[in-house]
């Protein structure tokens, strides 16, 4: 084997090691997060021992771990991973680094669904404790259906998808604003709380269902890695000359990422930043090769979400700051620092 091939293999190993280290840090951070909370004297070691079955737990301890902390941390991991992967897929297939899972209007659709349920009491699952979630999911699926219809149009461009997404966002926003205008104080409060983005809403069964859906979709995303590489680096003409159908790739990846986003934000509310930042942070570590970028984004997204949520739970305990807010507050400056440092901002 020649020196260039060897160097390429070496670089791949180094990148794999960096992603592995990030993964290990995320696992330890998650275990640490499991031990954090003001409601009990469950420290990190006791929590780990109880989870591994090495220590007997009281009923209260068992409830705290399995009904509160474990679903929350798992939701952070899966939600962060799903939104980060969705963001990376959308950025790649639209060739636009400014895109995030919220760009296509999926989140606005979900917000519209939530507003219908909260303000008007109209839901696809009325009189259920899942009325808001079901409505948010249903309305975001309507946006996915619009994307599917757009994809069937001949020669729809990346820009057209983005512009339609912006239009959907404006329309949904206008309808939600109208409902807010006529809403009661209690409804307004509930709607505002939904939009903050929180990991405390889904229970263990729901989180496991979300996990199965998200993990089931990941291999499909990985399968399209080469196509995303060609499309993101060279655009449509370059992709075609490499044997990639840009329209088909774009359509499939947008449907996949929109669905992943829907599944998560229907349960958590609006969490936007992780889907924009995690893919870019991952690119700084391992570049734009989607065979590595998808898993790295997933891990980075999980890391950011667990970190932000843990900080939000502990910083002003017992007050809990919603993860959506924490992510933007701590992630924003960190993200700006990484980008500027990498691009050599010095004159």
């Amino acid at each position, binding site marked *: 084997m020649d020196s260039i091939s060897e160097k390429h293999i070496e670089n791949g190993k180094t990148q794999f090691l960096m992603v592995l280290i990030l993964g290990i840090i995320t696992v330890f951070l998650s275990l640490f997060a499991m031990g954090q909370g003001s409601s009990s004297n469950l420290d990190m070691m006791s929590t780990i021992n109880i989870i591994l079955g090495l220590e007997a737990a009281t009923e209260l301890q068992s409830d705290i771990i399995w009904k509160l902390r474990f679903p929350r941390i798992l939701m952070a991991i899966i939600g962060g991973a799903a939104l980060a992967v969705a963001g990376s897929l959308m950025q790649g297939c639209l060739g636009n680094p400014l895109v995030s899972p919220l760009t296509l209007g999926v989140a606005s659709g979900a917000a519209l669904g939530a507003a219908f349920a909260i303000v008007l009491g109209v839901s696809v699952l009325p009189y259920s404790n899942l009325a808001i979630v079901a409505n948010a999911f249903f309305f975001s699926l309507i946006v996915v259906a619009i994307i599917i219809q757009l994809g069937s149009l001949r020669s729809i461009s990346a820009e057209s998808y983005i512009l339609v997404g912006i239009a959907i966002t404006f329309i949904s926003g206008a309808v939600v604003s109208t409902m807010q205008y006529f809403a009661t104080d209690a409804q307004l409060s509930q709607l505002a709380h939904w939009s903050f983005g929180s990991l405390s809403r889904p229970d263990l069964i729901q989180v496991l269902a979300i996990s199965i859906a998200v993990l089931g979709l990941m291999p499909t995303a990985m399968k399209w890695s080469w196509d995303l590489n060609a499309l993101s680096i060279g655009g449509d*003409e370059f992709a075609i000359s490499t044997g990639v159908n840009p329209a088909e790739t774009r359509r499939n990846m947008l449907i996949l990422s929109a669905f992943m986003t829907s599944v998560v934000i229907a349960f958590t509310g609006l969490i936007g930043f992780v889907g924009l930042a995690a893919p870019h942070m991952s690119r700084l570590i391992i570049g734009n090769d989607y065979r590595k970028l998808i898993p790295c984004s997933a891990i980075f997204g999980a890391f950011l979400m667990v970190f932000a949520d843990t900080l939000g739970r502990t910083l002003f305990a017992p007050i809990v700051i919603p993860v959506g807010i924490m992510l933007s507050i701590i992630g924003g400056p960190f993200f700006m620092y990484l980008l500027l440092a990498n691009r050599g901002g010095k004159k």
Partner: protein
Amino acid sequence: MKEIIDVTNLNFSWGNNHVLKDLNLNLKENELVSIIGINGAGKSTLLKCLNRILKPDSGEISIFGEELSDVDLIELSKHISYVPQSIRSNFSMDVFDVVLLGRRPHIQWMIAGEDREKVSKTLRYLNLEEFAFRRFDQLSGGERQRVIIAKAVAQDPAVYLFDEPTSDLDLKNQIEIMKRIKELISVPESPKSALIAIHDINIAARFSDRILLLHEGRIIADGTPQEVLTTKNIAEVFNVTSEIVNMHPNYIRIIIKDEINEKKTNRTVIL
């Protein structure tokens, strides 16, 4: 020589602008063919029709006897590699990984050792080894152009379609790249051909086996450089006077002199 591509009565329009009109051409094994013509003559459009980037209004295109539209896109990319003038991207990769994209039609998902070897050999062949692990977006325009050409070479197709492959290159690299392209298509055991849209008629004259002169959507001359690049043809198509010089035993040189019938207008030079 065996025919690789055959085009019959090809028509293409951009709206009401009829760009290609009943165009016929063929491309044979081990042949380097240049297409020359003025801006907007349809050179790039023709290349894009041949790679299914654009869909013609009518006409037939066949590759190895099979209708182009019937060939699966992955299979087509094993036969044809199109090299655009330049690519713009908001994302970046190492040069090695960009060239590795040329192996995309040949691999499933995992990279095999032979694919890496192919990329390494290609980088060395095009004197790009020092760029292998530099970021593609940090290269100059000319360096990027050579990397895209390397990607096409690593793809190992039967037909190269080059759109202005030397437009961003310095003089030495223009000659260097054209020599490499000529070498690649001259190996009898590995029959390949190249169709090159190019503005530099001296480069075309030196390296082409055949030149197609595209004018107003039609090929008005098709033959060896000596047959096509006449002062009459150059005057008709490019509206310039020229002189043909036989200073080299193997190829002609064209010296462009001046515009014909320059429009006399009251232009003011604004400084």
